[in-house]
């Protein structure tokens, strides 16, 4: 369907697709098997200016918005969710600086991020703070001109590979979530180390590690926003990034659907290509419809965000929820359409199905997205008319 993309948006789509087809598809199986971080592809994305998409021009970026980022993420996700997760997590880690950073912080970090010279990671989750982000235990103690960080972040995408980390830690334990603050920590800071690389079900090209802080001292200038703002920084960051997870869902679903359709046209049973059987046709029709609905929602929400909307928590949660549930369903059905072949590693759909599962879990499980949507519904209903 024609989404009336601008010429520049079409350019971004075409370039991202070219990178996906020429540089990602040929290596995705190997990256998955070896659980290898896709540095080469990240370098291609850097050279192609894609890391600068959503960063303002004054800081070396292209000054585009959520829709452009979603388009790039969708195209990369068609080929490999491990690669697109690495790329999208970079944006996730950048949002705290972009949304709340001082001009000095932006000048210091954004140009390197825009050029792809330095990768970013976002550190919120901990062993006891997943869906309950308020349960974080990592602390940041003010000490003269520094903050001293202690604690362990868990399952951090791009952990170890990134050079810039935006970290949520408690500056005032007594206040709970209201005592949280956001910080920038650079790789190589004494007292900042990494745990083992996690072994995952899918998105195995992406790196997932623990971040370990042991009396890690950082300058007080690395505080993002103000003390006590950490939870707000985290929530606004997730509001901004969620639609990108939806775009990942659209991409991987489309990738799996394309494979299933191609296969169904070639596979002959009972003397006919299986695509001629109504059982297969109805599955394909449902899959295609769901993908188009998910894409429409993701693009509409991204456009709404880019229009300068201030409050988009509910709709971004809807986009993430719907598109990623579609991704799980469509990738599962793509395997089903392809039968035994779909289950084999020789074809890419089993990987897509394994990969898709994370989308219903990370950046807020889809159960949490439903909570968020419902909370906003209740809030809206209670507002005086």
């Amino acid at each position, binding site marked *: 369907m024609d989404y009336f993309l601008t*010429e*520049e948006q079409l*350019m971004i789509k075409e370039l991202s697709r070219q*990178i996906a087809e020429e540089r990602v598809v040929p290596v995705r199986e190997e990256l998955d098997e070896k659980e290898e971080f896709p540095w080469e592809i990240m370098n291609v994305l850097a050279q*192609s200016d894609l890391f600068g998409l959503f960063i303002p021009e004054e800081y070396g970026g292209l000054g585009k918005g959520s829709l452009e980022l979603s388009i790039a993420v969708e195209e990369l996700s068609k080929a490999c969710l491990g690669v697109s997760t690495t790329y999208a997590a970079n944006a996730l880690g950048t949002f705290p600086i972009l949304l709340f950073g001082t001009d000095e912080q932006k000048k210091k970090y954004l140009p390197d991020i825009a050029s792809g010279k330095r990768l970013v990671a976002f550190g919120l989750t901990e062993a006891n703070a997943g869906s309950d982000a308020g349960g974080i235990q990592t602390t940041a103690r003010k000490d003269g001109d520094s903050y001293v960080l202690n604690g362990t972040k868990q399952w951090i995408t791009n952990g170890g590979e990134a050079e810039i980390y935006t970290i949520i830690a408690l500056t005032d334990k007594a206040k709970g979530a209201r005592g949280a603050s956001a910080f920038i920590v650079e790789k190589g800071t004494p007292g900042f180390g990494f745990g083992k690389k996690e072994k995952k079900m899918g998105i195995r090209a992406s790196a997932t590690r623990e971040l370990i802080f042991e009396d890690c001292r950082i300058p007080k200038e690395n505080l993002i926003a103000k003390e006590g703002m950490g939870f707000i920084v985290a929530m606004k960051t997730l509001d901004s990034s969620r639609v990108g997870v939806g775009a990942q869902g659209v991409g991987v679903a489309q990738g799996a659907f394309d494979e299933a359709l191609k296969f169904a046209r070639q596979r002959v049973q009972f003397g006919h290509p299986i695509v001629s059987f109504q059982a297969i046709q109805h599955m394909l029709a449902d899959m295609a419809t769901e993908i188009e609905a998910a894409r429409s929602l993701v693009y509409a929400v991204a456009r709404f965000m880019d229009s300068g909307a201030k409050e988009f928590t509910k709709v971004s949660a809807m986009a993430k929820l719907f598109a990623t549930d579609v991704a799980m369903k469509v990738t599962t059905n793509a395997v089903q359409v392809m039968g035994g072949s779909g289950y084999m590693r020789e074809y890419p759909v089993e990987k897509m199905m394994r990969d898709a599962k994370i989308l219903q879990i990370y950046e807020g499980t889809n159960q949490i997205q439903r909570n968020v949507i419902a909370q906003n519904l209740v809030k809206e209903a209670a507002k005086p008319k």
Partner: protein
Amino acid sequence: MNIVVCIKQVPDTAEVRINHETGTLIREGVPSIINPYDMHAIEAAIRIKEKKGGKVTAVTMGPPQAESALREAISLGVDEAVLLTGREFAGSDTLATSFALASAIKKLSADMVICGKQAIDGDTSQVGPEVAEFLGIPHIAYVRKIVELQDNSIKVERMMDEGHDVIEAQIPLLLTVVRELNEPRLPSLRGKMAAKKADIKKWGAADIEAPAEKLGFSGSPTQVKRIFTPEPRGERKMLSGSAEEMVDALIKELLQKKCL
């Protein structure tokens, strides 16, 4: 350093179809691309520019639609582009093509000219070296590695059937390059935006001050008389086994055929 890259727009297929009546390539319905070897030439030129500064200009001769190949070159990082186009260039063989390209390059005053080793449609490998001759500069063909680049000289590896030569030459010069030289990059977004807006210079015979008799059909001493698919060669036999066994079998065979 001023670098000129000669590129050619070719049909995107190894299976070139031929019009048997005219003896020319059928281009209709076949998407066009930049000749793959020329992509390596563009990459080499851009890498030199990134290191040493300067400017890269892409030049092609062809029909008006060849402009899209030049825009693609700009999206990869080429700064300027020149399209030699017009009826006067039609029917050029390699000599007339080389003369036209060399005449254009003279106007651009290049320190270095880089070409792909050959085009995948014509496969002659002649145009690069001929351009160098018309320009009166040295050339090194089949470059697989640039070992060292100084302001006035260059050291390269030239690919040979077995191994390679190391050659040092003065600048200005012309290189033709092979796939082993580098991996061509993909376009950048800024490059694509620049390509859209870029002003492609369109030059005719008058712009390059070239006499008409040296261009196009009249400047081409060779003409394609007939294009055909060669008959498969006659009887063939593959020998296998150890070297000794194969040598013995070969001698026996040659003796039988009274070749020895």
